[in-house]
């Protein structure tokens, strides 16, 4: 059984810890490896290496730094299929979803290579008589990411390439549930030849996370995960004076207007609610038929959900894979029980799905509750599984109220053929990522990613131009030579 290692200072290192966790294949339920739960001392070694590497890297010209990423992109392209398959094996999503994720990872590398334009500052002569002023972006030091299980390839790369191309050094802490994907990615980083200590990886769980949060030599943290932890990370970084962008959970409402093109919307809605088995912060969670669209929408949506092919994501043609772990599957099942208890009508039950050849996989089939009311637990809490709640509303205002009352504000989507309605929706809805006639409002690498309310703690979001802001300090230089 493979025991994976940390990557520190350009070398694969066996951590000091004696504690290891199990890694599972969600489709088969089999153990496929062991991950170290690194200690604070292991984290400290990575921070020391990153700190040691910082000054030389910071003084390396940005274009030279970018060249490492040009090379890395080409290496990622060559290893594309390999990374995608490892990802499916440990996370469970389908091959297409995995390929899409790896693509998005690479897109962040591509965007980051624009550093020579995107990192520039600005200046103004004669801010006072004979005095000139420049605002220059400078790297800051050691940054790190604490990543979630649901996008093991992509999420660390919402941050890493920008931090490093700006001249910072970096530490990745992958999710202990899915550490194999980043391990493969770090083999490529190793081959790419970055200077020692510039990019490091420490595996682990709670102790490693706390060690990163409270380490005095880490300047900033990016976190993605559930909201309770996001809040904790935000507070800890506040206490220790770190920069922080902490992305939390979601409860996304998808409104369908009576004028929507239902047949066109259905495939997109299905992707929204059941893509990645609902384990993504942009997934639709509550389907909101507005007015008299309810009957037609419900009938067609249920039929399409029933037709989804559930199975091992490695098999081409499978449209929905298993959940990441037995524990998570049980959590999602408990939400289904809760929905029944609270009086929602279970109109599609995915609890006892049988997937041929995979009796021990962590599968839940597409599940739909009708007659859900806004006060029910399944309408309020993040389920992170293939469970849809249908909440009917009379009009757009009522739908917007649902979004406003949610503690989350990650994404919201609307299906309509009316431009005025669309504008009204995007103008008023309290969520940060909006989809009009699409169900996954996922910003690409050159736009910022992050939510509002309980879905985001911090000021500067991931990706986009904002990434260059988060990973640099703006130094203002005022000069008089006259």
């Amino acid at each position, binding site marked *: 059984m493979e025991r994976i290692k940390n990557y520190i200072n350009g070398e694969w290192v066996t951590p000091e810890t004696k504690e290891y966790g199990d890694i599972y294949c969600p489709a088969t339920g089999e153990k496929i490896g062991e991950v170290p739960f690194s200690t604070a001392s292991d984290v400290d070694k990575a921070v020391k290496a990153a700190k040691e590497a910082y000054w030389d890297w910071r003084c390396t010209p940005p274009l030279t730094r970018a060249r490492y990423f040009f090379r890395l992109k080409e290496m990622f392209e060559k290893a594309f299929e390999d990374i995608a398959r490892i990802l499916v094996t440990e996370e469970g999503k389908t091959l*297409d979803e995995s390929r899409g994720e790896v693509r998005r990872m690479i897109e962040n590398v591509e965007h980051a290579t624009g550093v020579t334009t995107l990192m520039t500052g600005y200046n103004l002569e004669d801010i006072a008589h004979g005095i000139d002023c420049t605002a220059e972006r400078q790297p800051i030091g050691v940054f790190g990411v604490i990543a979630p299980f649901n996008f093991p390839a992509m999420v660390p790369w919402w941050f890493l390439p920008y931090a490093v191309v700006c001249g910072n050094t970096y530490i990745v802490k992958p999710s202990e549930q899915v550490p194999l994907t980043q391990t493969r990615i770090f083999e490529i980083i190793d081959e790419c030849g970055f200077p020692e200590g510039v990019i490091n990886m420490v595996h682990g769980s709670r102790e490693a996370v706390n060690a990163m949060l409270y380490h005095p030599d880490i300047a900033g943290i990016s976190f993605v995960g559930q909201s309770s932890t996001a809040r904790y990370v935000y507070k800890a970084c506040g206490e220790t004076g770190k920069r922080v962008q902490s992305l939390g959970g979601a409860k996304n409402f998808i409104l369908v207007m009576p004028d929507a093109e239902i047949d066109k919307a259905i495939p997109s809605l299905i992707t929204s609610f059941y893509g990645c088995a609902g384990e993504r912060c942009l997934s639709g969670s509550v389907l909101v038929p507005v007015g008299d669209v309810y009957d037609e929408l419900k009938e067609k949506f249920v039929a399409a959900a029933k037709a989804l092919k559930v199975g091992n994501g490695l098999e081409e043609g499978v*449209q929905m894979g298993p959940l990441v772990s037995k524990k998570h599957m049980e959590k999602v099942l408990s939400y289904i029980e809760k929905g029944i208890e609270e009086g929602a009508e279970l109109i599609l039950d995915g609890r006892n799905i049988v997937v041929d050849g995979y009796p021990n996989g962590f599968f839940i089939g597409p599940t739909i509750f009708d007659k859900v009311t806004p006060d029910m637990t399944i309408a309020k809490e993040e389920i992170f599984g293939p469970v849809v709640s249908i909440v009917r509303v009379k009009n757009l205002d009522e739908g917007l109220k649902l979004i406003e009352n949610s503690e989350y504000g990650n994404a919201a989507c609307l299906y309509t053929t009316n431009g005025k309605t669309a504008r009204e929706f995007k103008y008023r809805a309290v969520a940060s990522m909006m989809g009009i006639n699409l169900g996954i409002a*996922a910003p690409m690498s050159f736009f910022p990613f992050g939510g509002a309310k309980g879905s985001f703690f911090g000021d500067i979001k991931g990706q986009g131009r904002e990434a260059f802001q988060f990973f640099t300090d703006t130094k203002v230089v005022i000069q008089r030579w006259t």
Partner: protein
Amino acid sequence: MTLSTFGAIIGFAAEIIDETKRICDGLVEKAKNPLLKEALQNLIKEEEKNYALMEKTRRENVTEMILEPITGFEREDYAIRLDGLNQENDEGLMDILLLLIDREKRFFQDASKKVSLPEVAGIFKKLGRKKEEALQKCKGMEV
């Protein structure tokens, strides 16, 4: 089996391209007519490029945001049977060649309508057009 995802369609395209190449590899030395031999050789070269194109398309055009389920596209509709066809004379080889090119033409043309991404639909459309041209050229060939 239904080709129900983007990856399944691209995967099947790569599969039939590879199959065409392998079959032609086995036939090229049997062809006596120089024009037929050349047609087989050209197809082998073209299929090498097409296979690489499919791999590139799968890698670069997969868009996580719009991976929508695909319906009504069956791989069985593109199954071909070569047993019973004579591989020992040029007429028989030409029949096989036409069958292979026609299968690809039909598949690429149908796939261009099933895939919602315009870039990918465009690639299939172009491949379908090229196969149609190849088909007409082969049909006009005297062996």
